[in-house]
């Protein structure tokens, strides 16, 4: 009995040993015609931000597929998708997962600012290039001088500067601000307030709301009494939708301006006609205006993705392209890829020219205003709402009625 137990134990033990050896052997190395290189994508695939997350993932995957389809590419690329759930703690794990896989040469990561800011250390410590594709908090690039961290999209600073300047251009004088209390909303509120003061806009009130709030009638009732020209909302669509809806219901006819967080399809879908005339700002040029933009749109549709790419999909696409180009050029070596990416200057992409400054931040030449027209986000300059266009922004009408303009 004892002997048999030992024999079987021995067998099990050796089997396990062999198995684990096999697993470790499966690590780096391997051969083949084309070497496989992994690029990680990190973003929210579950939770409330999964919508834009999935759009980003699809766009990223599209870039990888295109590179693999290109006979000239030196390597076969493999996409590694990791969910960060838009939670910092999970994000750190995700970044670490990417970083600790030696085959991963670059990472295109994070939609949520909170997550992106929490992982920069991880990428820095592991010498892995991190190209941010969606998070807009300035500190992600400017908060440190980690050479591994890049960002293709713009920051809140740029977005809000342009936004405030535009408001003056439209002739608005007073603003009431509502923002969510997340880093995204609060950050936007802060940078907008700063820019607004610079250009001489009067801020009537600032109100924060928690991210799972549904009812804004209290805040809006207060705002109604203030009677502002514009209501500025810093936050994402899940809050923006009910906020806009209730604004309409309370018959507040001030202009409604949002940040990039509401520029997605669900905003228009959920609001229907109530979305008409809402403005939001997004870094980069509108897809349609760029040479590759339409091509991307078509390719995306051709690839058969059910979900739309959303606002930041093109950025994920470009980030992937940059990573692939760098790898093609210097080979699958993390350090070299980081150095190579740092030299990116004036590269033509579907989001416009990409130039990284010394912090790895893309100095986006352009911030575009969009307006919701007939259930679509249309660049303001191409819409009927443009200056001298056929339609008039609700805020302008409102001001005229009030005799403020």
């Amino acid at each position, binding site marked *: 009995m*004892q002997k048999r*137990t*030992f024999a079987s*134990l021995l067998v*099990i*033990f050796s089997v*396990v*040993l062999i*198995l*684990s050896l096999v*697993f*470790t052997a*499966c*690590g780096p190395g391997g051969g083949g015609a084309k070497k496989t290189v992994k690029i990680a994508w990190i973003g929210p*695939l*579950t939770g409330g931000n999964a919508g834009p997350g999935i759009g980003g993932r699809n766009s990223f995957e599209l870039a990888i597929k295109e590179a693999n389809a290109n006979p000239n590419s030196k390597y076969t690329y493999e996409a590694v998708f*990791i*969910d960060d759930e838009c*939670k*910092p*703690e999970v994000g*750190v*794990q995700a970044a*670490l*997962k990417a*970083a*600790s*896989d*030696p085959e991963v040469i670059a990472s295109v990561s994070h939609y949520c600012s*909170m997550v992106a*800011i*929490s992982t920069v*250390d991880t990428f820095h*410590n*592991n010498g892995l290039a991190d190209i941010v594709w969606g998070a807009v*908090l300035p*500190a992600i690039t400017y*908060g*440190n001088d980690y050479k591994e961290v890049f960002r293709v999209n713009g920051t809140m600073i740029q977005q809000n500067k342009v936004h405030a300047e535009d408001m003056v251009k439209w002739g608005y004088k007073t603003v009431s601000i509502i923002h969510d*209390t*997340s*880093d995204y*909303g*609060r*950050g936007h509120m802060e940078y907008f307030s700063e820019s607004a003061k610079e250009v001489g806009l009067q801020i009537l009130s600032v109100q*924060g709301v*928690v991210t799972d709030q549904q009812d804004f009638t209290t805040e809006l009732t207060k705002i109604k009494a203030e009677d502002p020209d514009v209501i500025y909302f810093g936050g994402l669509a899940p809050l923006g939708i009910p906020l806009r809806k209730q604004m309409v219901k309370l018959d507040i006819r001030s202009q409604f301006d949002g940040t990039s967080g509401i520029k997605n399809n669900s905003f228009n879908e959920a609001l229907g006609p109530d979305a008409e005339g809402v403005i939001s700002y997004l870094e980069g040029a509108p897809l349609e205006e760029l040479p590759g933009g339409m091509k991307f749109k078509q390719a995306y549709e051709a690839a058969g993705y059910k979900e739309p790419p959303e606002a930041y999909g093109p950025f994920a696409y470009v980030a992937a392209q940059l990573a692939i180009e760098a790898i093609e050029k210097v080979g699958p070596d993390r350090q070299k890829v980081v150095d190579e990416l740092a030299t990116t200057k004036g590269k033509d992409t579907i989001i416009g020219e990409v130039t990284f400054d010394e912090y790895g931040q893309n100095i986006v030449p352009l911030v575009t205003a969009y307006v919701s027209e007939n259930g679509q986000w249309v660049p303001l300059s191409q819409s009927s709402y443009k200056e001298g266009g056929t339609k008039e922004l609700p805020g302008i009408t409102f001001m005229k009625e009030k005799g403020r303009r």
Partner: protein
Amino acid sequence: MANNQHEKEAFRGTGGLLLTLGIELVLYALIMAIFLDHGGTTLIIDVILAAAAIVYFKRNHALADKISATLAANRKAAWIGVIVLLLAVPFVLQASAYWLFIVITAGLFMMACLGLNIQLGSTGMMNLAGAAFQAFGAYTAGLLALNYGLPTWLTLLAGALVTGLFSILLFIPVLKTKGHYLALVTIAFQFMVVILVENMEWTGGPQGLKNIPLMNFFGYSFNEPLNLGFITLHKYANYYYFTLLLLFALGIAAHRIYHSWVGVTAATIRDDEVAAQTNGVQVNKWKLTLFVLGNCFIGLSGAFYSHMVGFISPPNFAFDKSLVMVSIVILGGMDNVLGIILGAFLLIILPEKLRFIQDYRFMIYGIVLIVMLIFQPRGLLPFVPRSYAELIQRYRHKLLQGKKAQGGQEA
């Protein structure tokens, strides 16, 4: 007396020793293979093996008893084996810092849950604000290190103590409410803390605290790879060993508290407050003491986290984390130190491995929670009655030695 019985049934001598170490080694290999395997094959194999083992041992009690007797008989060797194997983890996971990090995270959950267990398992006080108390520890450590540059050992200590202090905020509700009401109090507190932390300036608001100094003990920085001369381990090995050390210390402390008058008193309060009172137990004093003590553990884990990752923010301490902590305690087995460790392993490490089912993960988590609680409401390792054999043996031993010494002098 009890020990003699064990020895009779156990495999004896070298055979027993080898069996003990063999079992440990096989289990260890099976677990480590889960980490090293990129896919989920090992996990599936392990689950099948575990299920088979459970079925087999349920039918074959004799062998199970014999094996556990063998383990008991070779306790010292078994512990040495466990320690050696645990020390070897960073070597095995050298290629995968990610899994090392996950293991450390699970370790921190164990730490927090040891504390939560003192409240929930031992004393029966519901605490669904575990994450909020972790936030106290994390922010205390972070703010002290950032603003005053205090050394790590001090901030860790402060994190634990300040959390304990702040838990006194809740002392009236904890003493005056029970059951569902206490649950609601702690849930409300949890939400209040997170909202406040998010809205206050000096906590960094929603952007949290960045660049918290990583651990550094008297000049030894944990941020450098661990160089052992013959091999260089990932920097997380530093954290791993430190977690291990803390866990051992706290685990032993928790175990000792359990096996003492304090444990008996807590259990009596949990099972019947009235009976406790009429037997002279100052229920309020003990509830408060144990509530504070438990929160110190939780705070320490928070402080540790902030020094390991260097970044903390309000979402780190959301309600669902409190929920996970409570699930670990209940699923693992209330009032059972080993149960906590098993629970943390199952609820932290396995879901990480289940990432390949992405979308369905949380749904399955919910369903598993329900199924386990309905079929195994006392947890995987239900608590076992205290045994005083060890303490009594210890005293007898001391008496014996005293007599010998006397005898020696006389002669």
